[in-house]
């Protein structure tokens, strides 16, 4: 995964920075080359989906529920002041579907799943388990990287939808407690301002975030340097870089979806 040693073109730091970007692109290119090439590791993909998706449910449930309640509580006073308390379900739904669900799910997943992938592959690298696969004529990239990136790309959108549902449920409980709105009336009111573009953008964002989290975690773990310090660094950098890229992607996708909305 690294270029051949050569003299510095600029400074060592700048050279290493661009070399890192070049190697990351090579890593992504290798993923697209391997993902459509048989044999397919379906069993391992399903196992990873279980590890990444199912095992994240308690955390997503808690965060989604609390986010829904807190956001509703915080928004109510302003809307009540303008006599627009009935807009609360719609406002919450737009906020959850367009921004909160994709972004919060992605940030939680970057912390939980990204660090886990970085640490797991990093420790496999330093304990020579990846080398052991290579010498057994097994393609470790296909077995470890392709399966994990596929699983995160598939599972983050599912977790995002689940987060949105639980968040709206939390919001409903708060609205029901204060305004005595029924379940059906709340959800009718919540879904009426939601457009296809909102749902599509939320899903698209989640797919992008899932791919980013899986790819960054795998890249950092797979290329971890020797020793336990390298494992910690890989886990840490997986989270930091994933979050940074998620925010960049958020800005770009929101801007594009706004252009589409205006057009």
């Amino acid at each position, binding site marked *: 995964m690294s270029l051949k040693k050569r003299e510095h073109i600029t400074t060592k730091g700048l050279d290493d920075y661009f070399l890192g970007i070049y190697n990351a692109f090579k890593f992504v290119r290798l993923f697209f080359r391997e993902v459509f090439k048989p044999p397919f590791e379906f069993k391992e993909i399903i196992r990873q989906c279980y590890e990444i998706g199912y095992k994240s449910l308690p955390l997503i449930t808690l965060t989604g529920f609390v986010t829904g309640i807190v956001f509703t509580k915080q928004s109510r006073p302003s809307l009540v002041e303008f006599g627009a308390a009935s807009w609360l379900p719609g406002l919450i739904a737009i906020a959850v579907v367009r921004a909160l669900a994709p972004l919060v799910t992605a940030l939680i997943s970057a912390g939980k799943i990204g660090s886990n992938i970085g640490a797991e592959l990093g420790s496999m690298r330093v*304990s*020579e*388990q990846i*080398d052991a696969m*290579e*010498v*057994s*004529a097994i393609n470790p990239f296909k077995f470890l990287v392709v399966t994990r990136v596929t699983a995160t790309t598939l599972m983050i959108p599912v977790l995002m939808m689940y987060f949105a549902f639980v968040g709206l449920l939390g919001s409903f409980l708060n609205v029901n407690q204060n305004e005595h709105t029924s379940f059906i009336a709340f959800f009718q009111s919540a879904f009426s301002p939601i457009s296809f573009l909102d749902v599509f953008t939320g899903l698209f964002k989640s797919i992008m975030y899932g791919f980013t989290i899986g790819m960054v975690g795998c890249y950092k773990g797979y290329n971890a340097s020797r020793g336990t310090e390298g494992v910690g660094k890989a886990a840490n950098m997986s989270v930091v870089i994933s979050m940074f890229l998620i925010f960049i992607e958020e800005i770009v996708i929101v801007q594009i979806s706004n252009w589409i909305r205006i057009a």
Partner: protein
Amino acid sequence: MEKLNKSDIIKEQVISIQGLYKSFGENSVLNGIDLTIHKGENVVILGRSGSGKSVLIKIIAGLLKPDKGIVNVLGMDIGSIDEKQLLKLRLKIGFSFQNSALYDSMSVRENLEFPLIRNSRHLTKKEIDHAVEEVLEDVHLHQTINQMPSELSGGQRKRIGIARTLILRPEIMLYDEPTAGLDPITCITINELINEVQERYHTSSIIITHDLTCAKATGDRVAMLLDGRFVAQGNFDEIFNTEEETVKQFYDYNFIN
């Protein structure tokens, strides 16, 4: 399986290395290595830590690329073969890692099945089970079949690591520090296992070590690596009785420690 006697070692070359150089940045590790391994032969490479022993066998297994020189393994030049050929070649090479490198998330059975299932997708469940049980019998660890690597002792991990490579029936075995970190009694059992593997599986082996007991017990030939070059080669007694000062220093250090 038919056993091989030491006298049966055939003078057919399975590994031939000529003028091998390897460096990492400024650090020059191998400085012109020449080595030949014959069929059925156990060759021990002795040397201090950091002398390039592990780098040498990683080049033979295709994990590292040589900077210069020819590394011919079973008739294939490691430096010029493509990925497909390298995968084919790797099926014939067994690599026993210093820290065993067992897959932590898999049981002993799954560790052993893993390379077999992925390389022989046509095998039935019964055939796979039979192969797993056979190699476990060969390393005398049948009772550990359902255990996790974390539940095994250091010696057991080494033996399972060797069993995992044997399941693919390799022609060449590469042992990286097989007795490192083990007590003397366990070292003896590992040495015996290395000889059993040679006899039973008719393998040619390179054993990387700085353990003289292991070298004496397993080596048909011993090569002493120092500063990236072989400074002495021969049988154990020839190396042991050499007048070469650097080699004598290595022995003295071993006996003192």
